[in-house]
């Protein structure tokens, strides 16, 4: 798009969405684990998967202001779908990923009709209820899901027919990172579009939206479905890279963790979920070597500290620092 043909207000809007050098540096840095920590690629792939999951929550929470305590429903649904397809004899990863995405999207679309009618506390209760419902259904359907033992017998074929999922996680991290990046590109495009603007409108003032002729409910159904697709893809990645699916993919704990991750990193900032996932997962990995049973003590402390001192998350705090610096200069 030649910027010479853009008017001044257009150029101003375009400047807001242009790629920043820091962003490019960030994505280049995601390649570092291959070189610096080749023994931790399994962890790196789990971080990428969690980041994608947190990004999907950011679309609904950070942008449209829809609070969810049951987002793991879509993650777990995608996870079981991908796991079952592979267990039943179709271990091709990419088609499995697409089918899981479609399944999670379908679930998201159906539930979005309930979600779009509520806000605030009612919404928390409904998303929580939906999440618990699905987790319990998976638990009781042991013949299908393997129940508390988890889904066994998932065998993945080579990625693109070339790359075996290995113990070191090289394929797993490459695969997860590429999918995360594609998901990020999609999310970035979405939030910078007119639709993304409408979502921010809903977040900023849901009362005004109908008064400017906006059909908020339709917007909410749409973004909720898209977020469910993305969460389902994240879940499918976990199933495929670990070749197992456990009940905790659907658990309340996972819904709460992803919320904590997003709030820690900073909601409504696109990178918040990714940064939050890195900090959270690395910290958990480190602390669990020291004393695993007290791990949530530190997460609790961190969460309170962030909410008290950095209400817009770690990224929000950093953005404020940069602004202060510029003003001082």
């Amino acid at each position, binding site marked *: *798009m030649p910027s010479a043909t*853009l*008017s001044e*207000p*257009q*150029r*101003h*809007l*375009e400047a807001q*969405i242009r790629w920043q050098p820091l962003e490019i540096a960030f994505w280049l840095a995601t390649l570092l684990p291959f070189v610096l920590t080749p023994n931790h690629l399994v962890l790196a792939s789990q971080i990428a998967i969690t980041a994608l999951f947190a990004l999907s929550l950011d679309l609904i929470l950070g942008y449209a202001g829809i609070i969810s305590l049951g987002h793991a429903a879509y993650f777990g649904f995608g996870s079981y779908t991908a796991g079952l397809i592979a267990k039943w004899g179709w271990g091709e990863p990419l088609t499995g990923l697409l089918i899981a995405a479609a399944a999670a999207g379908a679930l998201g679309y159906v539930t979005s009709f309930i979600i779009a009618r509520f806000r605030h506390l009612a919404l928390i209760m409904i998303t929580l209820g939906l999440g618990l419902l699905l987790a319990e259904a998976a638990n009781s359907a042991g013949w299908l899901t393997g129940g508390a033992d988890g889904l066994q017998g998932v065998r993945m074929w080579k990625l693109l027919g070339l790359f075996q999922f290995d113990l070191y996680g090289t394929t797993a991290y490459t695969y997860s990172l590429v999918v995360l990046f594609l998901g990020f590109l999609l999310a970035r*495009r*979405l939030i*910078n*579009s*007119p*639709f*993304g*603007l*409408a979502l*921010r*409108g809903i977040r*900023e*003032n849901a*009362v*005004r*939206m*109908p*008064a*400017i*002729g*906006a*059909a*908020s409910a*339709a*917007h909410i159904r*749409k973004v909720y479905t*898209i977020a469910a697709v993305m969460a389902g893809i994240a879940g499918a990645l976990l199933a495929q890279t670990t070749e197992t699916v456990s009940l905790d993919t659907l658990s309340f704990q996972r819904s709460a963790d992803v919320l904590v991750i997003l709030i820690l990193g900073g909601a409504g900032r696109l990178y918040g979920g990714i940064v939050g996932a890195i900090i959270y997962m690395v910290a958990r990995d480190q602390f669990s070597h020291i004393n695993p049973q007290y791990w949530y003590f530190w997460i609790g402390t961190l969460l309170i500290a962030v909410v008290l001192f950095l209400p817009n998350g770690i990224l929000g705090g950093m953005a404020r620092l940069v602004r202060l610096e510029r003003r001082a200069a």
Partner: protein
Amino acid sequence: MSVPALATRGLDKSFGSLVVARGVELTLPQGERYALIGPNGAGKTTLINLITGMLKPDQGQIFLGDTDITALRPEARVKCGLVRTFQINTLFPRLSALEAVTLAVCERRGYAGNWWRGLPAYGDAVEEAYAILVSLRLAASCYRPTRELAYGQQRLLEIALALATRPRVLLLDEPAAGVPQGESAELFSVISGLSRDITLLFIEHDMNVVFRFAHRIIVMAAGRILVEGTPEEIAADARVREVYLGGTRRG
């Protein structure tokens, strides 16, 4: 006789035993400027909420042109051209003024569901939004977040958002509420400069402003329309004086 721009027939509304609208019959001819006045608690804002669909009437009908819109949802009424502003700023605090007005334009043009192209690619919508901001003298600060704008500018942005929907009938709920007296005349000169294709109804307490800018005045008290007439008729009406100077006990 041409069809009125907006009409209500026998609107009733009560909350429990509190009656807030009783048999309200309203007829706004095309292109007129009406003021809606009355003491606090008379039911003026309630009437706007009823007309725009934010409240459901217990009884009665609302017509926009010759269409019965009583059953339509608020956003559908806006799409038909019936638009309001709010007495208390009801804006998008962290959107810039340009983004907020562009959002309203995008909703009208049917772009707001598009998620595959960036906002700057929708040049027609951005240009239209910018032109509205220019016409309301908001262009200079249109890139700043709404919450950082001066209060008077926020009042103007209320109107800008409404204009972006291309209203045929515009209901202004105390557009100058909270604005110092000197600036309120300025605000109303902007309002009176609006296209004559827009039929206007505004609520206002400052009688100087009302008599200067309204072609006709509707007086409400206790949920009813007390009287309607030209500014001269209203000024001379004994009932109006009674309502304002100590007739009713309603707060």
